[in-house]
């Protein structure tokens, strides 16, 4: 058993590592991708370009505009001077929001009445729009409070400084609510999935295509020896890549690593079990490499969408949520984010580990069962 397995492994490692293009795919590409994608995955809304249509031009309007600018959330990119200008900047995308202040704004305020301000938003990007709206509401709320304080002080001679209720917020695990900390570990999980699934899905079918499979099948090699020989090298390479990408995540992107790295490595091992299992299964059912590649892509796209990488699983319809239980990526994302950001250990993550073990074993057995040493 071990002698044959040993020779399978030697052969597989030579084949994988001898080809310079393959080496680049295995070790350069993931590094380049984590760096590029790491900068791109960021859903933080800052510096929303904004235009201002100020018809009043009074200290009061200037104060409000200054508050928008000073918040860091908005950048005033243009001052509009005519009505059609509003349409123009929103259409062209030059600004995502327009603040319109009508004539009589300051007058209404000084008279103790209510002044109207219009805030127009480009809602096509609903996520950015809703975040921007929250910022705008907070800015106008602050503006109101300071106005009220002034009025009280003026009319009653009393300084009003205490609010009835104050909400003291503090975000745990990701104190600055930095979305990159949340997404970069997810990118790691995705890169490992792409690499391991594509490589393993090509591995058996390649031998079938070039004809070496026939020669292998007339030898006394066992099914398990062959399947393990195909799995272990990619698992080792997968580990190496995770280590490499994790180092970049921690030292380049400064994503905190609060947990115990061996927990992450255990999770990675179990995760690779299922991704390689899926890949090998695809390889055993495909008759050409092209077919295997297509099938792998058809698996990966829904696997990413339904993993909780971007779209929260809790927001999905019940049926779709049930489907996600079959997705190894779902469990690994919980593990990897838990270890990186929350410092979680096995006492919390064991259900995910268990699920990955079950999925991985099932997929590998399925692949081994599908693999026959006969043709036709």
């Amino acid at each position: 058993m071990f002698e044959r397995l040993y020779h399978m492994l030697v052969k597989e490692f030579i084949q994988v590592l001898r080809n310079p293009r393959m080496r680049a795919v295995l070790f350069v590409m993931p590094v380049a991708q984590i760096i590029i994608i790491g900068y791109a995955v960021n859903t933080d809304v800052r510096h929303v370009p904004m235009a201002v249509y100020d018809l009043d031009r009074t200290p009061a309007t200037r104060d409000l505009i200054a508050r928008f600018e000073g918040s860091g959330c908005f950048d005033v990119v243009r001052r509009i001077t005519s009505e059609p200008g509003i349409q123009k900047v929103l259409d062209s995308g030059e600004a995502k929001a327009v603040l319109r202040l009508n004539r009589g704004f300051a007058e209404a305020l000084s008279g103790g009445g209510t002044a109207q301000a219009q805030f127009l938003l480009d809602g096509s990007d609903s996520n950015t729009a809703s975040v921007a709206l929250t910022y705008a509401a907070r800015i106008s709320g602050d503006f109101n409070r300071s106005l009220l304080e002034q009025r009280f002080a003026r009319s009653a001679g009393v300084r009003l400084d205490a609010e009835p209720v104050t909400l003291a917020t503090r975000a745990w695990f990701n104190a600055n609510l930095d979305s990159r900390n949340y997404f970069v570990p997810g990118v790691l999980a995705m890169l490992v999935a792409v690499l391991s699934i594509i490589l393993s899905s090509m591995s058996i079918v390649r031998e079938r295509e070039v004809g070496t499979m026939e020669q292998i099948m007339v030898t006394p090699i066992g099914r398990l020896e062959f399947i393990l020989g195909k799995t272990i090298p990619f698992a080792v390479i997968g580990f190496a890549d995770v280590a490499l990408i994790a180092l970049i995540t921690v030292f380049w992107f400064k994503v905190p690593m609060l947990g115990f790295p061996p927990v992450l490595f255990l999770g990675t091992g179990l995760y690779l079990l299922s991704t390689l299992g899926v890949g090998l299964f695809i390889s055993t059912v495909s008759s050409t490499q092209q077919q295997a590649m297509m099938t792998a892509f058809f698996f990966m796209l829904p696997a990413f969408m339904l993993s909780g990488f971007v779209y929260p699983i809790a927001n999905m319809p019940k049926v779709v949520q049930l489907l996600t239980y079959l997705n190894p990526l779902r469990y690994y994302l919980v593990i990897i984010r838990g270890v990186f950001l929350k410092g979680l250990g096995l006492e919390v993550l064991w259900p995910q580990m268990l699920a990955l073990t079950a999925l991985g074993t099932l997929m590998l057995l399925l692949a081994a069962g599908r693999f026959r040493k006969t043709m036709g």
Partner: protein
Amino acid sequence: MNAAPGRFAVTLRDLERRFGDFVAVNRISLDVRQGEIFGFLGPNGAGKSTTIRMLCGLLEPSGGQGTVAGLDIRTQREEIKRSIGYMSQKFSLYDDLTVEENIDFFSGIYRVSKEKKAERKTWVLDMAHLQEHRRTLTGLLPGGWKQRLSLGCALLHEPRVLFLDEPTSGVDPLSRRSFWDLIYQLAGEGVTVFVTTHYMEEAEYCDRLGLIYRGELVALGTPGEMKGGLMTDQVLRVSCDRSHEALGVAATVDGVRDAALFGRDIHLMTEDAEALAPRLRQALEAAGFQVGAVERITPSLEDVFVSLIEARDRADGAQKEFKA
């Protein structure tokens, strides 16, 4: 099984393989003695490779029985794989491994013992004349060299039965010749060689031949027997000018079963060569051809096979024509 497996390397009884409705191998029975070079001949698609794959445990038979090296081809497939060598028409070693790495891989998979490994490796490298190229990537070797290496890798574990599926297709004549020298050497050492081919001159090298056509075993015997007894037709050789055009005329002469070009000559199959010869000369000269020699010849193996296959086609009738 009525044949004693000890004396025979391969025994087949009514071996059958169907793919859906298509019968690829139709109830074939034959025995191959130990140390024999058995040639399995037939046109493409006749069922040669299907048969050999069943013998090597690559394909399950749909019916019938068989043994290879005394082991049952239905129930002892993995045991068979330990005691046979197999080499197919398609080069099937790893192009991206060096010569030496391929040898090491296969001797590892066949579990050649530690003491023997080095010796077998040297044997393969010497046999294939690849000593200086041991560190060359296998993919860079010319066809004939690859073929020898393939054979060497199939022989690392010293199998008692060797299966060769069109081993010399796509190899130049010189390499083919030296390849056959190796086969003789192996047979001399007691290895049974079961080889498929469609090269007639290769068929002549075999101890015994089986002709398979449309999945059926049409003839079985030594090359001598085939040329002597098996053919009911006689062969008439005609040399004349513009033989290509003359072929059409000759084919229509009464008493001619079949006519084919052999180089510049025409070979005619007939029941009675003596009677046909004068009539043929007359017909051709009347059509304006210059006729040289017209003589009865000993049929070549190719004549025999063409004649046997034609006879089978006539027997089957024309309705099956498309099915080959």
